[in-house]
């Protein structure tokens, strides 16, 4: 397995050339996995011709299909965006281009980011390369599979309640959700504006850090983006051994025994290096899922109101304007999205808003406060990434509550706006399982450094051969 930096060293020697790498990545695209909605070979080749020198020179990147690339269809895995081609690129896309990265394709997702399995896609489910009968996780399942199966060196996803981290766990990869505001959201199709962040899925911490250096930073087009200075996120080899890592007891409840042991293995390895662990408590953990649901569904119901077929997308003509919109949206959205829009509409409605939306906002602040408090005692938190490894396709599709189970570990981080990274802890049978490191706001370098240390002392042995033998 090669890192981005290693590839670039090899490019200088011409073995392989960027074009060779691109071709080999394209060959590894396995249609049966259904990771891609659109493969953009021509676009990638054109990018290589430009040969822009930069941190990502010659590196094929997969992009979740809810991030706009100018001139390339954006579907969000939804029929409602049928035929839509954006006339602009997301800020992160422009930054990757400026750094020489090339785009291999738009990857599959749960419709509009709403789901945890990449099954709820108009384009069919994506399959986990470790076990075709299992989900890759979601909603950034396509991006995770692209990297895990070797067809992309690194990918971008989006994380609203865990959508980058959970697939990373299920696919043996490193998945980072940055601090809210660290990466511009301009050009990311909004699901829940106050929770969404563009995230990175890669093979290792250094690659992810390099990509973060490229895409992070203030963007005047995104009023919620932070002006805080950037760090050298790819430089991860220095880490203080005096750090204290907290283990929130609530995150270790309701998980498989094997998941518990895998995470404990990582803990042991870090303890050997002199890092100390401490048990902490986050009592609001039980309220994470319902709070996340209320806020994300409410914002989604508003963000998705623009899909009316007037300016773009699917249109089914009705008798009058409202009828046309209703028919278009009925046909355009899959059931999960409809569910969430309707619930979101409900929690914002005048008779319910105080009890639901406004209350959820208060609980959100409590959750955030709790994290702030705990970070006074410890530097980072370590938790399992998911309560189980990848589950079977079809297992949870029809259960709106069970689908959120893994969100318990991940959504608290989105509610509080803090950064978190998931990395492989080990294998449970054929399936990878991840651990999660959570940090204070803007601590991306710190949490990635912990992952880097683990990579050195307890390297993951579960890469698929398409990646391993690369």
């Amino acid at each position, binding site marked *: 397995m090669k890192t981005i930096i290693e590839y670039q060293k090899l490019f200088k020697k011409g073995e392989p050339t960027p074009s060779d790498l691109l071709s080999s990545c394209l060959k590894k695209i396995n249609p049966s996995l259904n990771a891609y909605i659109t493969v953009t070979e021509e676009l990638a080749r054109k990018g290589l011709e430009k040969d822009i020198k930069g941190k990502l020179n010659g590196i094929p990147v997969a992009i979740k299909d*809810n*991030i*706009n690339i100018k001139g390339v269809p*954006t579907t*969000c895995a939804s029929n409602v*965006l049928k035929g*839509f081609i*954006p*006339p*602009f690129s*997301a800020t992160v896309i422009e930054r990757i281009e400026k750094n020489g990265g090339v785009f291999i394709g738009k990857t599959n997702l749960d419709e509009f980011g709403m789901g945890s399995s990449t099954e709820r896609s108009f384009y069919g489910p994506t399959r986990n390369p470790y076990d075709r009968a299992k989900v890759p996780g979601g909603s950034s399942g396509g991006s995770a599979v692209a990297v895990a199966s070797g067809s992309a060196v690194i990918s971008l996803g989006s994380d609203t309640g865990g959508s980058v981290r959970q697939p990373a766990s299920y696919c043996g990869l490193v998945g980072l959700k940055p601090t809210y505001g660290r990466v511009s*959201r*301009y*050009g*990311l*199709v*909004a699901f*829940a*504006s*106050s929770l969404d962040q563009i995230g990175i899925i890669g093979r290792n911490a250094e690659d992810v850090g390099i990509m973060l250096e490229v895409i992070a930073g203030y963007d*005047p*087009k*995104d*009023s*919620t983006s932070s002006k805080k200075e950037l760090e050298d996120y790819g430089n991860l080899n220095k880490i203080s051994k005096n750090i204290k890592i907290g283990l929130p007891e609530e995150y270790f409840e309701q998980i498989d025994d094997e998941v518990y042991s895998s995470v404990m293995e990582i803990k042991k390895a870090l303890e050997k290096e002199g890092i100390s662990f401490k048990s902490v408590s986050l009592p609001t953990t039980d309220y994470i899922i319902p709070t996340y649901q209320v806020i994300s569904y*409410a*914002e989604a*119901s*508003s963000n*998705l*109101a*623009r*899909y*009316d077929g*007037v*300016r*773009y997308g699917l249109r089914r003509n009705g008798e009058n*304007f*409202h009828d046309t*919109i209703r028919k278009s949206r009925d046909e355009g959205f899959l059931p999960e999205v409809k569910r969430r829009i309707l619930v979101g*509409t409900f929690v*914002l*409605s*005048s008779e319910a*808003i105080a009890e639901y*939306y406004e209350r959820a906002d208060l609980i959100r602040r409590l959750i955030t406060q709790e994290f702030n408090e705990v970070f006074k005692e410890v530097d980072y938190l370590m938790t399992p990434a998911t309560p189980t490894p990848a589950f079977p396709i079809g297992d949870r599709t029809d259960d709106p509550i069970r689908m959120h189970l893994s969100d318990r570990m991940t959504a608290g981080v989105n509610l509080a706006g803090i950064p978190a990274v998931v990395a492989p802890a080990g294998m449970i049978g054929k399936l990878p399982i991840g651990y999660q490191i959570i940090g204070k706001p803007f601590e991306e370098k710190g949490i990635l450094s912990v992952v880097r240390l683990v990579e050195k002392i307890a390297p993951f042995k579960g890469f698929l051969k398409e990646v391993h033998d690369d």
Partner: protein
Amino acid sequence: MTDYKPTIGIEVHSQLKTATKLFCGCPVSFGVDANTNVCSVCLGLPGVLPSLNKKAVELAIKAGLALNCEIHTKSIFARKNYFYPDLPKGYQITQYRFPIATSGEILVEGKKIRIKRVHLEEESAKSMHEKDCSLIDYNRSGVPLIEIVTEPDIDSPEMAVAYLKKLQKILQSTGISGAVMAKGEFRCEPNISVSKEKGKLGTRTEVKNLNSFRAVKNSLTSEIKRQIGILEKGGIVEQATIHYSEKTEKTRVARLKEEASDYRYFPEPDLPPLLIDENRIREIEKGLEELPEEKTERYIELGLLGEDAITISNSKKTSKLFEETLKILNEPAEISKWLVRDYRSLNEPDISAEHLAEMIEMVLKGKISRNAGAEVLAEMVKTKKTPEQIVRQRNLSQISDSSALEQVVREVFEENPEELARLKAGENKLIGFFVGEVMKKTSGKADPKEVSRIVSEYEKKY
């Protein structure tokens, strides 16, 4: 019919005079080809985010200040959710619970009309109708608007028009908005109810689609009649939207408000709170000029003569001095006299309000004569000395002591027996002559008012 009193409140939407739209850099212009001033943001494409126009904020603050509102250093944008062809995102970004300005007022024909709030919001697109479909042009989508809402303080269609005209003038003269109704830059939506009982309001209806002041007057007059008609027959006025037709000059009930739309307002997650620096507000306030007419009205209320009020308010410098002096010495009429005559004839020099007040007070208290006051003023301008110093140095204090003056008056009477006889015979204008003689004798130091009084009294005795 006359027992029913109308109560009117008005909502005005005014387009701000900015170069670009509220949340994107698209140009704002009138009369250009359809869909030529549109970008991904104002088209509401997937993935776009709003970016707030600085100038729009400043103009909104200016509007709030011009309407004597309290400007809030923290205000919050909100989403108003509903579906309509001219609304690209399916929601409008506006301000709801925390607008930029509240609690203002303006005077309309002497009556105080309270301004409930002023807030920023984005404009919707424009639609045109063909036989078989409607056409949408997004050039207007996202243009910055301020919404100005009054309390229901307006009590007649005529006053409503007066309010609108005044508001329009304020917005135009301060450069906040072109406010041309015909261009759609100034839209008003009055709401109106009638009631016989004092303190109790009737059911309100809203009047829409008004494109001229005349339409405002006619529609409100017509609606008052309609509502009274219903009530007199013992019926109930239902909440409704009223449409006015320019052609027929009649109003009709367009839509009953059965179910108020649930706009599901919530704070806009894409925009952090708008924080405004106090200093910035002061700066904008400085740049804001009160309309001369405003000032004039205000001064007349204070008791100035109309002519004097106009003279003072038409000069920034003089009116500033007037107001500052007034803060120290509450004698508006008196101060205005000095400003209109002596100060103006000196060509509006730089003097301090404190000194001016001091001088005027001395005259009022009789410490110096009016003439002496004029001298002091002239000297103040030349030398920058204080009135006290000048009076002392030039020995200008007046003799007001009546016994001393009586003495002088007696002397003058004795020296001018002929004139005294004529005065006693009824030629009262000779009082002035005697006052003049006393002034000569006292080298101008006598208080002429007092002298005049003494002369009038004494001539009877002689």
